[in-house]
């Protein structure tokens, strides 16, 4: 028996010994229900993301994303080159509307790039973007980029964590995505004093484009 297997047995036995004679464990209560007064939607999502230093804007349709990316990149004075993740369902012809923005499929370089991705969902109660790992987007790209622009459909913005669990359980009954990343605004650190400094390891800028249609 390996030392890990022996440790496994001894740990589980110790846990069972400790439990011996204890009262039966009550059944788990139903999932937590957030009081109605606290439930929010897109407005709450944008406000809470904004309080964590993310910016957001609305566009009408998916096709409006490239011009919005161009506006943001120009407005921020960023390099006119963006890495577009494959999870964003837009063909090259649509990106032509964003000229002179240079579009590449990646990879994100060491630092300083702008990354544009789609998004599985948003959660209003935390202003969080919910991203899943997939074959189309190297997971580390979301953390190596200096600027992250995420497009999320308004219908995918859910009020609570519980709503997210329900959707995840529907979409992935048994095989969960390898990683799920929740992102609330830019990367930051408080290790160099208060207020926190943005851009600790990951993006220093997070911009959210909400697609209303």
């Amino acid at each position, binding site marked *: 028996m390996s030392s890990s297997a022996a440790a496994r047995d001894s740990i589980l036995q110790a846990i069972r010994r400790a439990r011996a004679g204890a009262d039966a464990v009550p059944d788990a209560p139903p999932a*937590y229900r957030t009081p109605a007064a606290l439930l929010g939607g897109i407005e709450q999502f944008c406000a809470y993301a904004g309080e964590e230093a993310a910016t957001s804007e609305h566009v009408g349709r998916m096709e409006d994303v490239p011009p919005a990316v161009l506006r943001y990149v120009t407005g921020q004075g960023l390099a006119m080159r963006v890495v577009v993740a494959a999870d964003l369902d837009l063909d090259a012809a649509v990106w032509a509307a964003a000229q002179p923005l240079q579009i590449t499929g990646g990879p994100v370089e060491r630092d300083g790039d702008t990354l544009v991705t789609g998004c599985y969902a948003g959660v209003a109660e935390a202003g*969080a973007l919910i991203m899943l790992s997939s074959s189309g987007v190297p997971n580390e790209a979301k*953390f190596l980029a200096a600027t992250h622009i995420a497009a999320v459909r308004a219908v995918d913005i859910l009020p609570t964590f519980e709503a997210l669990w329900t959707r995840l359980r529907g979409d992935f009954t048994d095989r*969960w995505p390898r*990683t799920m990343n929740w992102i609330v605004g830019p990367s930051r*650190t408080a290790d160099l004093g208060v207020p926190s400094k943005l851009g600790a390891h990951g993006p220093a800028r997070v911009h959210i484009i909400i697609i209303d249609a």
Partner: protein
Amino acid sequence: METTSRQFRQLSRHALEQATLQHSLDGVREIMPRIRAAALAERGDFDALCDRARDIRERTLRQLDSYLEAFERRVQAAGGTVHWAATGEEACRIVAQICRDAGAERLIKSKSMVTEEIELNAALERDGFTVTETDLGEYIIQLRGEKPSHILAPSLHVTLDEVAETFHQHHDIERSGPLTNATEMLAEARSIMRDKFLQADVGITGANFLVAETGAAVIVTNEGNADLTASLPDTHIVVTGIEKAVPTLDDVGVLLRVLARSAIGERLSNYTTFVHGPRRDGEASGPANYHVVLVDNGRSEMLGTEFQDMLRCIRCSACLNHCPVYTAIGGHAYGSVYSGPMGAVLTPAFAGLPAAAHLPNASTFCGRCEAVCPVRIPLPSLLRRWRQRELNARPVMDGQRFGLGLWRWLNHWPPAYSLAIRCAARVLRRLSVPGRGGQRWIRRLPLLGAAWTDCRDLPAPPGRTFQDEWRRRRS
């Protein structure tokens, strides 16, 4: 677990004299309770969430074996490997072996209190590996050869000037430039760290929660360093305590709601990551090897004992931030990686009571730690139990035992008690002088009382005892 807790008295005296540390602790005392309170105010159901969080942790601990086994099955099904370590040494050996099997040299780590507890870095360095902490605070103290002074803000005690000095000592000074402000220091750290991330062979993280339902290791950070640590190297190792299991995603949602609000006064930390296993076919990136090391190191021995409630802890640090003792002396005085009230309960359990006997005594029992704990751990009661054990274990009569014995005797003899406190009330009143706010204060007490008045004034009692006042009002 190695500690210097025996030197608590000397260390805390030293801490009180350090002006820069006192300045940092002033910040904790002033800012942290305020931002926590603001975050709670928005959430009208916070008490209900804390009740739920307590119940989730309690229910989990009572069925910990089945949740750990369910978690293990899920990880294995996703292609990962789960290792079990009864002690810290075993855990270090397992991690070193995984690194050797991976042919690794350079390791990166994100902040994890369990790996501090088992002194993983020292063990890996002894085995010839190069380990770099990637949480900025951990990186700073790693360069300085120090221990964390706060479970969330490990470099709390280090000033900006000292950070600059440390970077100059350890980095290429020509490239670094003068580093005159926090922004320059952050840019410096980011640039150095990028190389480390991109060159690392193995990434080691902790986990805040292990979800039995899905097999996820949930990792919470604000910097995003854990995400890069878990994504870039070809091997990812999660090292965490067995008590981190939770049954379902619904349970994680409740715990995440109370964690960030209690810890940093925010709705959620910037990055919350659920890792389910190694890279899958067709994926462009991600670690090919995924391991979870479950560390016991004294935890299962706490189950079923009067200290079981402590295993509910989710390491939010609210008890530290609200503790009048922690915010006066900081973390290093505790001589343990776990400090404040939670550390004063955990350290005797992990390092043995003789090594940590001072810690449970370093509490005023004001009760703020229990009041702010999001999983409602009765910290003062647990501290009191350690005190009882410690007092009973003393082989000889000493001043404290004599004093407590005298107090007990007085409490059993009402006439003597009444006489003693009446005398004390009058003597103290006579010693007092008028002070601010119309209150009378005692500036100097004789004998043992001088220990109090050397540092601060004592508010004078009214001169009459409660019993006298009670009699007067009834008559």
